[in-house]
C-alpha cells in the first residue's frame, strides 16, 4: 500500500527540516537527500551529469542518516557541486551510495543558502504504520 516515494520540508524556527518518505529505508534516505538539495535550489534545474560514490558508517540508522546528509554537504562544498539524483544501498550500519549532479553555477542555480550541517534535532528514522519509511532531521543553514 506504499505511496510513491517523495520528500518534503518541515518548519523549524530558525532553520529547515528535511524529510524523505519511501517504501524502503533506502528510498527514504534518497528522498531526504533530494529535500536537502531543495533547501538550496530547485531540483529541476540541477542536471544529473556527473556521478560520485559516497560511503559512510554510524552505530545506528538515525546517526547514519545524519552522516549521509553531512557527507553530501561536504561533497557539495568541497567539489562546488549540487546533486539531484541518488541511489542508496544500506547494509547494517554501512551506507554506500551514488549521487549524480553538476557543478554549481551561481548565476543559474541562485543558491538560497549554503547548509552548515545536518543536526540531531527532530531526527527520526522509522517505519510508519502504513508501512512506509520516514527519514528526517533539521539542517542548520
Amino acid at each position, binding site marked *: 500500500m506504499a505511496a510513491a516515494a517523495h520528500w518534503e*520540508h*518541515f*518548519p*523549524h*524556527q*530558525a*532553520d*529547515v527540516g528535511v524529510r524523505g518518505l519511501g517504501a524502503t529505508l533506502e528510498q527514504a534516505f534518497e528522498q531526504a537527500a533530494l529535500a536537502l538539495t531543495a533547501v*538550496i535550489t530547485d531540483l529541476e534545474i540541477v542536471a544529473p551529469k556527473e556521478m560520485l560514490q559516497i560511503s559512510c558508517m*554510524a*552505530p545506528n540508522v538515525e*546517526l547514519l542518516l*545524519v*552522516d549521509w546528509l*553531512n557527507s553530501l554537504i*561536504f561533497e557539495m*562544498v*568541497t567539489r*562546488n557541486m549540487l546533486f539531484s539524483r541518488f541511489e542508496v544501498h544500506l547494509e547494517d550500519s554501512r551506507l554506500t551510495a551514488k549521487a549524480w549532479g553538476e557543478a*554549481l*553555477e*551561481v548565476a543559474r*542555480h*541562485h*543558491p*538560497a*543558502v*549554503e547548509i*552548515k*550541517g*545536518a*543536526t*540531531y*534535532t527532530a*531526527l527520526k528514522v522509522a517505519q510508519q504504520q502504513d508501512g512506509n519509511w520516514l527519514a528526517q532531521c*533539521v539542517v*542548520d*543553514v
Partner: protein
Amino acid sequence: MDLALFERKSEYEWHIKPFGKMHVPGVIFASESLLREMDAKVYEQVTNVAMLPGIVEASWAMPDAHWGYGFPIGGVAAFDAEAGGVVSAGGVGFDISCGVRTLHTGLRIEDIEAVKTRLADALFHTIPAGMGSTGAIRLDAAEMDAMLRGGARWAVERGFGNAADLERIEEGGCMSGAVPAQVSDQAKRRQRDEMGTLGSGNHYLEIQQVTDVYAPAIAAAFGVKQGDIVVSIHCGSRGLGHQIGTEFLKRMVIAAPGYGIALPDRELACAPINSPLGQDYLGAMRAAINCALANRQILTHLTRSVFAQIFDKMLPQARLPLLYDVSHNTCKVEEHKMNGRTKKLYVHRKGATRAFGPGHPDLPRELRDAGQPVLIGGSMGTASYILAGTEQGMRLAFGSACHGAGRAMSRHQALRNWNGRHLVDDLEGHGILIRSPSMRGVAEEAPGAYKDVSAVVDAADHAGLARKVARVVPLICIKG
C-alpha cells in the same frame, strides 16, 4: 509560552525552579510580552541544559532566545571542570565563533549619498558572498596551521589590517590553546576556498548610519556620534567551523554513555572537560575561533580596499578603524565570582554575546571604564544596536547579553509571505540598497521574518544585562 511555568523574580527575570534531574535553576531574561511569544521549546531546552553535569549557578536564556539545537539560541551555561563539568559541541553550535564586528568610517551621511550605488556595487563585487563564492587566499598546510593558531594576529602579520585592530578584538585577536592537529583534514579541506568569505543565511556586511545615541558618555568612549557611518560584518568560521561542529557532535554522542552521561537530547552532546575528548574538542574549537577571527579580519581588509578606492582622494581619513569584534558562539574559560569566591569556569554562549562590565581586565584600556561594546545585529531592513556591558550583568549571567533579533518565523513561511525582488525594490524605496546573489535567500531573510530587535534590546537593557548605547540603521546590505 505559559507564564505559569515561571516564578517572576523581577520585571525582566523569570525563574524555573530545579525539578527532576536539573542541577540548577533555569532563568530567562525577557519582558512579559517577549516571554509570552517565546517558543515553548526554549523552556524545554533551558531545563535540559540545567541537567548537564557540572553546570553552576543557572541555565540562562537571553531575551532573543528561540528554539535551537540542544541549547536554545540565546543560551548561556557555565561549567566547573573540578565538579565534573562538561564542554558541549552542541552548546557552541556549528558556526563556531560566529560574530559581529563594527568599523568606524569617519564619514557622515552626506559623504555617502552621492556614491551609495557605486559603493554597494563595489562591495558586492569585492566581498565573496553566498554559496559557491570563493576567497582569493589559498593556504598550504603550514599556513593553515599558522592561521588556526594565530587568528586575526596571523591575518595582520600577513598584511590584512594593522596591530591596532587586535586590541579591539576579544582575546586580542588570537585565541590561545588552539590545537590545529585536532582539526581534521576534512575540516581544513572545507576551508580551502573559504578564507575571506561572508557565507550565507543571516550573515551580512552592512553600511550603517548611527541614528540615535542613548548613553552619550559611553558612546563618546566608543567613538560613536549621531549621523556617523559605520560598517558591520556578521559572519563566522565558515566551512571549517561547521565541519568541526559536525564531527565532534557525533563523537560526543557516541562517547557520552561511556562517560556516564545520560543526554536529555542528542544535540546536547558533550564530554567532561577533563577527558581526552573534551580536551580534543577545546583544541579544535579554539582553532575554529581563530579561523573566524582571521576571516573577519580579511573581510575587513577587503572592505577597507573598497573604501580606499572610492573615498581615498576626497576623504583620506576613511581608514576604518575597528570599534570592536564580538563572537557569539563560543565556549571560553573565564573567571567569575560565585558565593564570594572567584572561580575558573567554562562559559558556553550559544547565540549570546560576551558583555564584560566596566573595569574588566580583558578590555582594552580606552574602553575599560565604559564596559565592553556589545554588537547586536538586527534584520536586513530594520536596525542594529550597540550596547555596553554592565557591572550588574557580570552578576546576572556572568557577563552575557543577547546577540540579535532572533527569527519569528521559519524560512518556509517567509518564502510564502515575501518575494525577494519585490523586497529589494521596496527597501530601495526606503533608501536601503540590498545586494545578494539569491533573491530566494533575500526572501528567506525578510525583515518581517524576524522579531522586533528593539524589544529584545530594550529587555536586555532593562534587565541590566547590557546598557543601550546607540542605534544604527542599514544603508547598504551585502547578503550571502
